[in-house]
């Protein structure tokens, strides 16, 4: 078994452990009942998405600054993983909203800004596909990745900047009982490990596809031309 399989198996095991905590350890919410258990993965995947997009920014800056192919590959991998986790956040949020708010969607500041975040980084993935491979794709995507990150603080602070129906921060306000807090922090840690493993595997895929003979030519073009 290579180390990627081991890492993937470990991440899956951690997520199963988190599920066990969510369903068997955390107490049932007095008001909302079992559906509140969505909270643990919903918030964790939102945080994993934010962290992934922060990784996109770091990789993009590294590429624009030093023409680092590694930075570009990291940004490519993290953008895809970030979009996946944003999708999970949105879908789980909708599943939670239906029984509690009575509707799948409402044009609330946080919901809207999260949807915009998804659209921005889906656009990032499209730019990668439509630009001439190599230097142009890397540079344009890096610019989109950095600009798109402007929306992340908007999503985060939307609940304090605007009047919203979406609940605000619960950790810093000490609103959770200890069992719930522990379950949440454990789930968050597991989700972050999962995101890291996904980015690492995606990085490997990108590196291998860059190593294809026809990609070599493009890669050389991605480096600064010797002038």
């Amino acid at each position, binding site marked *: 078994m290579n180390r990627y399989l081991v890492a993937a198996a470990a991440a899956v095991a951690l997520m199963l452990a988190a599920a066990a905590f969510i369903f068997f350890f955390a107490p049932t919410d007095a008001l909302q009942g079992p559906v509140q258990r969505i909270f643990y993965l919903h918030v964790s995947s939102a945080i994993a998405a934010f962290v992934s997009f922060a990784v996109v920014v770091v990789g993009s800056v590294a590429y624009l600054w030093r023409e680092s192919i590694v930075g570009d590959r990291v940004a490519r991998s993290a953008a895809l993983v970030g979009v996946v986790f944003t999708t999970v956040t949105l879908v789980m949020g909708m599943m939670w909203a239906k029984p509690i708010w009575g509707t799948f969607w409402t044009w609330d500041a946080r919901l809207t800004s999260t949807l915009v975040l998804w659209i*921005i980084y889906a*656009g990032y993935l499209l730019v990668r596909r439509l630009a001439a491979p190599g230097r142009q794709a890397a*540079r344009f995507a*890096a*610019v989109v990745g950095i*600009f798109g990150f402007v929306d992340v603080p*908007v999503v985060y602070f939307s609940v304090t900047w605007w009047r919203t129906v979406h609940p605000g921060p619960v950790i810093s306000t000490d609103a959770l009982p200890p069992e719930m807090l522990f379950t949440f922090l454990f789930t968050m840690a597991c989700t972050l490990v999962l995101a890291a493993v996904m980015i690492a595997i995606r990085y490997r895929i990108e590196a291998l596809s860059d190593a294809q003979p026809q990609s070599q030519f493009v890669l050389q073009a991605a480096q600064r031309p010797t002038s």
Partner: protein
Amino acid sequence: MRSIAVALAVARKDLVSEWRSRELVPALAQFVVLALVIANFGFQIDSRSAPAIAPGVLWLALVFAGLLAFGRAFAAEKEQASLEQVILTSAPPAAIFAGKALAAAALLVLCEAVLLPALALFFGTPLSIALAAAVFLATIGMAALGCMFAAMVAQLRAREVMLPLLTLPLWIPFIVAGGQAVQVMMGGGNSYGQALWLLIDFDILFVVLTSLAARFVLDE
């Protein structure tokens, strides 16, 4: 100083070329009036519903007119292959970019000069300096972002599709703040000043960010 001279020269070149051909501005003006006509059919507008719908129609028409204007700003250069030549000169990319954005913003302002009176005429909304100021402030930031992405997509395949996909999400802050200001002007409320300051903040943020990014977008 040299950067400013370059930016003004590029802007002047674009405006002169538009003045000689008179292609874009008449088309844009006709487009925004058509947008109002379509809105009339889409929303079943009467004198009671007009004030509530007008701000939304204003921003929709402006956003799509902006996409057309900024898309043309670089697509025309790309078709004539003149963009490469401008980039090959020793002029700083940020200055070239600022000139293109300035010219495109001026064309959009001309188009607003048709849109706002037309809206007042057809929808019976009030027309004021404060309203024009909010729309103008939004135009500055939208021009900076729109021109940056237009420069990018001019070099992509499927540029007509990609320009709105990339630009619209980042224009949302201007539509949120500008929409708030326009709603106050047309309907009532007292958060006009706050919305205006927010627009100025966004203008500064995105003008700085886009001029930093210009180097990476205009570099072939």
